[in-house]
């Protein structure tokens, strides 16, 4: 099996599953319990938190556990809206966000908040000038993704940071669900960002766990009210096995990050350079530094993305139409739509997304199968 759909989800690492099992079996006490058994669970929880804090260069109190990327996005946005309502009702985001961001914004719109969606250029990126122009005295939040999940565009985070340095009161949230282990931490954890959200299952941890970085001193309202876990900000008994497993997955992911990123970049390039030779192929995530090392999005004109996915599946190769979340809804990619790609071409788009375990041999196999399928597709059209 060749698995090229790592932006949808990743394979839980065996060592991570092992940690999950051991913690479930041995440290199932409630971290809030007073007795020594609960205390052990508490210590493991905090040690996991410390490890994650160290890996991102944050302090212990800046790491808060969530159930994943969707909760993190909802929380950063709605939590800011609730907390800072009296200071303004204007939110800014981009037109290419994940639905977890987009639909949270839409919900807030119904409650009377105003939302500006920043347009993107031909590479799916926003501009700092557009951001600056969109900021109003009533702006309370800017939410931008680090890496677009559909085409892999890396947003100009350093330039956004420059703009927002002039507006220190605005909360800045980065959805970094696709941005971990891809050599981008320096850009993401810049000196201006306030909230960064992550999802465990995108980096070989189990489902149902994620975390938020919250800059010290920034205020946010909890969405989960209850027993006061996570510093009174996110109630619910902590999912300790998944938290410990995520801490481990993150440590493993970031070991030799540079070499792993280089390898993914080379594999991506090998496929890109192969498929772009075909006349019906359009590459959306071009060979430019503004694209992430692990995502390649392209279309074969005249062939539906769905058809391409199933054809590869026959060869035990797993790729995706542009986003797993919308792929079953038969809608064309929203990012491509925003980029004003012709609807026909957009429905022909597919996405390859790599992880650090993919090999060049897999890329060669993919290219070989691509040649066969391309010839077959050509007969159809």
């Amino acid at each position: 099996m060749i698995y090229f759909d790592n932006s949808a989800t990743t394979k839980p690492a065996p060592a991570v599953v092992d940690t999950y099992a051991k913690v479930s079996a041995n440290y199932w006490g409630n971290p809030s319990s007073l007795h020594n058994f609960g205390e052990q669970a508490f210590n493991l929880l905090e040690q996991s938190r410390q490890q994650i804090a160290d890996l991102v260069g944050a302090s212990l109190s800046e790491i808060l556990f969530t159930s994943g990327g969707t909760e993190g996005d909802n929380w950063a946005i709605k939590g800011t809206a609730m907390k800072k309502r009296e200071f303004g009702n204007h939110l800014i985001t981009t037109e290419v966000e994940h639905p977890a961001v987009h639909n949270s914004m839409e919900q807030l719109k119904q409650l009377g908040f105003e939302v500006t969606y920043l347009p993107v250029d031909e590479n799916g990126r926003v501009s700092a000038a557009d951001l600056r122009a969109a900021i109003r005295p009533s702006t309370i939040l800017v939410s931008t993704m680090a890496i677009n999940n559909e085409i892999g565009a890396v947003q100009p985070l350093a330039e956004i940071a420059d703009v927002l340095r002039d507006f220190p009161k605005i909360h800045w949230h980065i959805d970094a669900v696709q941005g971990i282990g891809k050599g981008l931490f320096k850009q993401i954890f810049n000196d201006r960002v306030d909230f960064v959200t992550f999802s465990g299952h995108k980096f070989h941890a189990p489902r149902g766990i994620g975390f938020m970085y919250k800059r010290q001193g920034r205020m946010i309202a909890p969405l989960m009210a209850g027993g006061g876990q996570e510093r009174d900000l996110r109630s619910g008994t902590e999912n300790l096995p998944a938290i410990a497993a995520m801490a481990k997955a993150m440590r493993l992911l970031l070991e030799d990050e540079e070499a792993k990123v280089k390898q993914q970049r080379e594999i991506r390039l090998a496929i890109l350079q192969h498929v772009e030779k075909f006349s019906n192929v359009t590459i959306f995530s071009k060979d430019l530094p503004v694209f992430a090392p692990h995502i390649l999005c392209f279309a074969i004109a005249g062939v539906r993305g769905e058809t391409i996915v199933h054809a590869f599946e026959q060869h035990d190769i797993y790729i995706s139409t542009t986003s797993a979340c919308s792929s079953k809804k038969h809608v064309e990619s929203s990012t491509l739509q925003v980029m004003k790609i012709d609807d026909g071409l957009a429905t022909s788009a597919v996405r390859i997304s790599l992880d650090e375990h993919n090999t060049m041999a897999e890329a060669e196999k993919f290219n070989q199968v691509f040649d066969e399928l391309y010839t077959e597709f050509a007969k159809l059209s």
Partner: protein
Amino acid sequence: MKYSEIMVRYGELSTKGKNKKDFIKQLGHNVRKALQQFDDVEVKAQHDRLHVTLNGADSAAVMDRLGGVFGIENFSPSVKVEKDIDAIKATALAMVKEIFKPGMTFKINTRRQDKAFEYDTNHLNDLLGGYILENVPGIQVKMKKPDLTLRVEVRMNGVFLSGQTIQGAGGLPVGTGGKAVMMLSGGIDSPVASYYAMRRGVKLDMVHFFSPPYTSEQALAKAKELTARMAGYSGGIQFIQVPFTKIQETIKEQVPEGYLMTIQRRLMLRLTAAIAEMRHAKGIFNGESLGQVASQTLESMMAINDVTTMPILRPLLSMDKTEIIKVAEDIDTYDLSILPYEDCCTIFTPPAPKTRPDLEKSRKYEKYIDVEGLMKEALDGITITDIRPNDKFLNQNEDVFAELL
């Protein structure tokens, strides 16, 4: 930038006349202790400066440690280069480029110890300043309060350049101010008071009252862990745990409720004073702040202080709680202090303690119990633990967990 040494400037002690030698010796000793974990580092405490030669050790980690040593005014990471003008220029430029941000101003500040060096101070200032102006677009010279001062020291053994001065912890080297005992409960205040005591050069032993089963092992572990944090400032602290259960139970039985707290405090102070005398300490520190709780009113202090003539020092006396919390956060003890374990002060607190206890009544009620016998028993039961910086007590499974993670 790969630094070769950290140059440390002394604080107040530079002005201390004939004690100066002792101070420098003590600071050298404390710095060596703080840097124990770095095998190759050499520490030389000279009359005007202290030099930490890194020999390849991680400069950021070493500076992190130095930041917690009292008696240091500030320090500068420096690079040693050969006495060759091209090498000096190249390093000076690299250093400025590393720190430079658009709009910054700079100046060169040269000191020349080696008078035989071919360039004199002014000439060096000119040469290096000119070279940097030429090669760093947009930088400007400013003599008064520049953003960046590049210090150049021509010594006998080489030329040392530094572009940063980092604030030290200030105060006096721990050990130059004698020895005292600290009453450490585990709350927010006592670690902060310990910090201030140590900052004035006092070496502390920690006294902690332990009342199982009314207080938990966790509360004890927390007090020890706090001590380990404080040990970062002094290199090692003795932790004296005093069994207090029997005394508390007896007081609860024998003494009228309004005076429970006052008599308990008197006994704690008696025990602390006895321990201080045994250990040749010259005073007792605590974390009391005037009016904060019933035991910290002026009347209470008088009724409690009555049991000893040893000086009782209260560094937090006039501080507000919010100020104390701010310092606790700065010295990284707040998170530990607020862990919700019962300590011996909270358990036997009566619902309505006397905020204005009467001295004569306090003396009278104390006579209801066998003070001498109970004290002897408690003192026979003390346990002493040597605590080093970074020792762990709260999370005994750290290594097991590290395997899992």
